[in-house]
């Protein structure tokens, strides 16, 4: 765990509250649109044009480009909508768990097994 955002009450957690909901409104709206295949296709064809349509900030566009999940959360992404972006990239919840924690997928899964069995 690297980031300890002092504005966040729980380390490693980005509470999706009013501040975040406001900051991430356009980003989340874009990701919400990914419920539709036609929107996913349109994004895939020209990601920058699609981001512009929803008024994403530069920081948000950068995080989209870099598939930077933590960056998306920091820029106001809600995990439920960011997950739809991940889905578009064919990444599932465990894939993005690994990405966010900086582990390999196997390491991340092993950590979950440990915690699930009560070993950790």
């Amino acid at each position, binding site marked *: *765990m*690297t*980031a300890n955002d002092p504005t966040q*009450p*729980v*380390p*490693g*957690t*980005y*509470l*999706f*509250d*009013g501040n975040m*909901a406001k900051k991430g*409104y356009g980003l*989340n*709206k874009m*990701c*919400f649109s*990914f*419920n*539709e*295949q036609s929107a*996913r296709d349109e994004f895939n064809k020209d990601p920058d044009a699609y981001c512009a349509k929803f008024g994403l900030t530069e920081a948000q566009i950068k995080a989209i480009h870099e598939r930077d*999940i*933590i960056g998306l*959360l920091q820029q106001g992404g*809600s*995990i*439920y*909508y*960011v*997950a*739809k972006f*991940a*889905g*578009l990239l064919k990444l*599932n*919840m*465990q894939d*993005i*768990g690994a990405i*966010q*924690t*900086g582990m390999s997928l196997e390491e*991340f899964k092993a*950590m*979950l*097994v440990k*915690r*699930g*069995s*009560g070993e950790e």
Partner: protein
Amino acid sequence: MANIIGAVTTSHIPAIANAMANKAEETPYWKPFFDGYPPVRKWLNDKKPDVIVLFYNDHGLEFFIDKKPTFAIGVADEYHNSDEGWGIATIPPVTGESELSWHIANSLVEDGFDMTICQEMKVDHGLTVPLSLMWPGNEYGHVKVIPVCINCEQHPMPQPKRCYALGQAIGKAIESFDSDMTVAIFGTGGLSHQLDGEGAGTLNRKFDLECMDKLVESPEELTTYSNLDLVKIGGAQTVELNMWIAMRGVLRGKVTELHRNYHAPISNTGAGLLLLEHEMPN
């Protein structure tokens, strides 16, 4: 009066739908999870409840943060699932029960619950996965479902004590419905998990097992947690426990645990299963 015959809690994660689609139920990874379900399926097939009141949370299919309700209730005759963007199969329409739904909505608003009342509402995996789990092959068309959707996405979220009170008010409403229909309550989601942030993968087996005990014996203790407490103890999405707490609010009198399973991890979550009956006080 309609008769509340019991309650079920279950996980609702999309990975379960994928496991069923891929026929992976008997693989070492999934077997300890799916092995918990046959007794609950049998109970449902024996008791044949007419209606399921199902507490779930929408994960961004129907509701967006343009207009996010704290509590929403469906009052339609039919609900549709739809593409959620990550490739789980869309399931057939879900049958509603509009008359009892409106009765509950009337009673809730009268009792000071500020519901968003939905005649049209897409239902996501939070509602559909439990149905697919309980009636394999999606053979749930005969059961009427009343969706009750609790905000677990955007803070401020309703606190556990408010969700418990919602359940109690729904119980009162069902009991005042002039019909001999039978009703079962589903609490879905949870238990401990965190999907987002450097804290992704948080999971708390000890807490989950305690929750399951308390849910049966001393649910009031769970209502003393705040949502922030739940986030700290079990991870950011542990707030989904609110759907279990709401379910428990519906039950009255002595509650008996007929069946339990707990397995972790399933994907990123602690997966709990409970089958409860209650003895209504006279």
